[in-house]
């Protein structure tokens, strides 16, 4: 270290004992095994989140969250502001890649059963962040106030309205009234740039502190015969992390430049929903399922049943550390794998159906 830097370090260390932290980081090891590759996806999601915060703040400098001005302000960003097209395109692409990275991270944790004792809270905070990520996607989708967004929001908030008892008030709360209007846009804008980031940051801090404190989870049945290999977190693992982040940044730049995000047509509340309308890909499997649900099943409305089933399935998934007792005892139960494979296959099949039909 150069002298002024060393002096600053000494000054800081004298006051906040930073050497403890440095020592902790120096002693942190990451297990090396054939499943180690999955460790990187959480980091990728984190990196994409940081990109979202940065590009989001940049967009905020020009975006106007009102019914009359939202669409035009994004047109302005994309056509007049220097590199505005790039910033907006990166924000849209990174949002999608973030969901993708988070979903891969979540499934890898599920299949490795890393949610098991003692990492239940890490799983819960992670799942809540994934749900919030979907909320980010849903609220952000409306902000350009284009045709697709308008109807996606109508459908999405109407789905919330289907929930018995609390549904209707919840829908009115989300929409800021009976219908999707400028009031909805204002609310979604607030959720997207203030409420969600606040909650997300809080969850993220807990999540990361727990990961640091408890270390990386190792797959079940790994410690059997052969010797455990590890790699220092700093600098070995971190450098690999950073290299991957660099690759992700490049992929992002290529996507944003060569496949710029479209703006579409401005929303018109008195136009029919356009043919070929569909939600973002990560909602497609639910969207497609709802198409197949008949209007009435026994005495229930089909949509109530369909949405209810997704809600219950999501809740069961969220609580997996508490009903999968086997893996906490160090046993690798087959049923977890079967359920997981079933869910992945279902999501894949219905996403593909939704994409091509």
């Amino acid at each position, binding site marked *: 270290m150069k002298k002024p830097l060393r002096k600053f370090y000494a000054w800081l260390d004298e006051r906040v004992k930073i050497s403890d932290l440095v020592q902790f980081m120096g002693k942190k090891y990451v297990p090396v095994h054939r499943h180690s590759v999955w460790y990187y996806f959480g980091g990728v999601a984190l990196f994409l989140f940081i990109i979202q915060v940065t590009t989001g703040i940049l967009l905020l400098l020009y975006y106007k969250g009102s019914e009359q001005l939202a669409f035009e302000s994004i047109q302005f960003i994309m056509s007049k502001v220097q590199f505005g097209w790039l910033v907006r395109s990166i924000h849209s692409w990174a949002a999608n890649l973030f969901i993708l990275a988070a979903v891969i991270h979540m499934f890898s944790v599920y299949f490795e059963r890393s949610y098991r004792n003692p990492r239940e809270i890490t799983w819960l905070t992670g799942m809540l962040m994934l749900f919030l990520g979907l909320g980010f996607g849903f609220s952000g989708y409306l902000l350009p106030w284009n045709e697709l967004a308008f*109807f996606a929001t*109508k*459908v999405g*908030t*109407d*789905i919330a309205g289907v929930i018995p008892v609390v549904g209707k*008030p919840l829908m*009115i*709360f989300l*929409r*800021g*009234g009976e*219908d999707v209007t400028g*009031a909805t846009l204002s609310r979604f804008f607030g959720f997207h740039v203030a409420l969600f980031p606040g909650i997300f940051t809080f969850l993220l801090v807990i999540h990361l502190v727990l990961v640091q404190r408890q270390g990386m989870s190792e797959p079940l049945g790994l410690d059997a015969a052969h010797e455990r290999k590890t790699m220092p977190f700093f600098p070995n693992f971190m450098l690999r992390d950073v290299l991957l982040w660099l690759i992700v940044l490049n992929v992002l730049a290529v996507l944003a430049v060569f496949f710029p995000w479209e703006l579409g047509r401005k929303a018109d*509340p*008195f*136009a*029919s*929903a*356009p*043919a*070929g*309308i569909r939600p973002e890909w990560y909602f497609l499997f639910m*969207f497609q399922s*709802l*198409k197949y*649900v*008949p*209007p*009435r099943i026994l005495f229930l*409305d*089909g*949509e109530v049943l369909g949405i209810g089933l997704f809600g219950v399935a999501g809740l069961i998934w969220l609580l997996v550390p508490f009903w999968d007792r086997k893996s906490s005892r160090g046993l690798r139960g087959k049923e977890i794998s079967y359920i997981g494979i079933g869910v992945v296959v279902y999501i894949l099949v219905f996403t593909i159906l939704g994409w091509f039909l």
Partner: protein
Amino acid sequence: MSSRPDEFAPLPSASGQNVPLEAGQERRDFLKLALGGGFIAWIAAVAYPVFSYLKPPKQAEVEVTSVKVGKIAEIGKDSGMIVRFGSKPVILIRTADGEFRAFSATCTHLDCTVQYKKDLGVIWCACHNGKYDLTGRNISGPPPRPLEEYRVIVQGDEVSVLKKT
């Protein structure tokens, strides 16, 4: 074991004399109740205005009962159009044989706005592929109920849509 051995000891009264144990306990219970109750009341006093604030106020809306759409000649046969009926969209359809029909354009499934699909001769919702026939009846796909019907009146060559009473 309590870290404060005198926790349950008799409290000294204002006059300096020891108050009997039960009286001290009673006073403690009363204080607990008052503080707890006060805390709950405080929460309610904060939560009530916040929740009320979240509920969007009812906007005064002019009740629309009829809307003039236009001249017959402007509306082609075998076509449909969306009419602004107050804050709600209404679909006005002129069938192939020139008859007018009007329905709420809000799909009964999940709130999308429907359209007239010429090639199939049905009312179609693009969101989840719901279909209604030209009497508004849900005939295919997920819609659970028929579309609400509106009245169409032709006075001279002027077409109007009215709410059914």
